[in-house]
């Protein structure tokens, strides 16, 4: 019997098969564990259609007396996302200076700083929100804190990577000149990394707009809470118009940050 002649690049073929085998094994295991049957979705197709056509469509406006409240809740969500990201960015900047062995004046602390950020980052924002709710009570302040924690931790990692990528060389040269740590920060790290920092900051705003909607749903206030109330109150047609409102908000913010990013890179 002749062996089949392979045609692909040898390494890639292996990766291909490995990827597919892992995917299939995972698929079988998880399907068995959860008893998930895609057929139930199709069987429930009628329920879907009737839900969408009867309850969902057409989108209805909330009572006119409530409209200003809904709009102000959108503003709360935006304000929450924006202010928490800015604060997180400022704190993350100062933390990140100590997060890289090559730049920090205390290289031994760098690992601890990064580990701390990793811990904060890998616990989802909503879990933080719940932990804080049980200690601080419900309110926008807690939503602010929860968003602050995750975006702070995310930006510490992103900023440390930016600093190591961009300014390791010029920090070394300023060290050779005899510049002090604050001088190195202001004269080398800040000018060379600012663009990178700002672009991560904009990314974080995009993420936080979505996250602040979710944190709002469980008690952080804002448009998330408004939506949650309508869904719990079975007013799905009103909920749909609020969903459209959220989508519009997110899309507009994404557009704006995209534009700003281009301007900054100029």
């Amino acid at each position, binding site marked *: 019997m002749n062996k089949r002649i392979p045609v692909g690049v040898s390494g*890639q073929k292996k*990766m*291909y098969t490995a*990827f597919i085998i892992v*995917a299939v094994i*995972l*698929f079988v295991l*998880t399907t068995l*564990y959860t*008893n*998930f*049957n895609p057929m*139930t*979705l199709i069987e*429930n197709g009628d*329920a*879907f259609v009737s*839900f969408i056509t009867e309850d969902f469509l057409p989108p209805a406006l909330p009572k006119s007396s409530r409209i200003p409240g809904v709009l102000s809740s959108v503003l*709360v969500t935006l*304000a929450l996302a*924006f*202010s928490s990201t*800015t*604060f997180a960015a400022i704190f993350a900047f100062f933390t990140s200076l100590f997060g890289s062995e090559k730049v920090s004046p205390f290289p031994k602390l760098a690992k601890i700083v990064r580990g701390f950020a*990793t*811990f904060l980052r*890998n*616990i*989802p924002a909503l*879990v933080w929100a*719940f*932990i*804080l*709710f*049980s*200690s*601080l*009570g419900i*309110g*926008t*302040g807690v939503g*602010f*804190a929860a968003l602050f924690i995750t975006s702070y931790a995310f930006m510490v990692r992103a900023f440390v990577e930016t600093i190591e990528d961009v300014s390791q060389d010029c920090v070394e040269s300023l060290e050779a000149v005899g510049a002090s740590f604050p001088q190195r920060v202001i004269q080398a790290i800040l000018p060379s990394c600012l*663009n990178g920092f*700002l672009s991560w900051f904009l990314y974080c705003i995009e993420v936080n707009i979505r*996250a602040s*909607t*979710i944190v709002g*749903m*469980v008690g952080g206030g804002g448009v*998330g809470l408004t939506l*949650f109330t309508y*869904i719990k109150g079975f007013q*799905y047609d009103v909920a749909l118009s609020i*969903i459209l409102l*959220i989508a519009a908000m*997110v*899309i507009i913010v*994404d557009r704006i940050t995209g534009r700003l990013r281009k301007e*900054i890179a100029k």
Partner: protein
Amino acid sequence: MEQTIVQNTAKQTDNNAVSKKEKKIPVGCRQKNKFIPCFMAGTVLLTVISLMYLEIDWIKLASRVPEIGKVFAELAHFDFSNMDLIFSSMLETISIAVLSLLYSLILGVVFGMIAARNILRIKWLSVLTQSLFTFLRAVPTPVWVLLMLVCLGMGPEAGVAGLCVHTTAFFTKTFAQSFESIPDETLEALEATGTSRISIFVNAVLPAAFSQIAAWTGMRLETNFSECAVLGMVGAGGVGFVISRNLQSYEYGTAGLAIVLVFAVAYCIERLFVAIKKKIAQ
């Protein structure tokens, strides 16, 4: 008279009083990006306005800060009595995350093919798919899960279906971008040999975009897991439900253990993909 004195002293380079009289020598770049200072000022201004609008009661919040320490101390007193419940809910969460990822992967490739402008070349269809998925992507996942819960009732189906909406939308966009990054000349060359569009896609486009697809899938697993861990908190099952219910009933020991487990799994996924990325980059 005075002028000559000034001129004389100007020759002494270390005379400060004179150099102040001269025009200062600028040091900055000739072409500056004037946008960046404007942007930073605008950010600060907007932040101040936002904070004023939010009317957060900082004093009250600060007065309760010691409570956080107490809660953390209690969370750290792990309660291992509900271990089997935590573990099974964790497995359920991971399964839902993986399952939704795999279904979305297939859907994403299909829709990505439709949405990419250079594969099927039906312009109105790609525009339509792209705008539909832009909308789906803009709405946060828990909203979709909540709606699926209404349709399908409690169970993994709602979780998988809800997560799939957002993940598919994400994959459609990124895959379409990878497909479109393949040069038109390549496609033309294959088309000239008489190959059908679907077969071009399967034999040329898909293998070329494979490494990007794998990278995005890995990245998305991280997001999906953390989203999935959270779903329980808005009413679906899984480990999030265990955390929120135990926190609300002041059983901090169990909640603490579940949170640590969430962290551990998220951390492992992150490490795994950092390692894989390094290997691919080599």
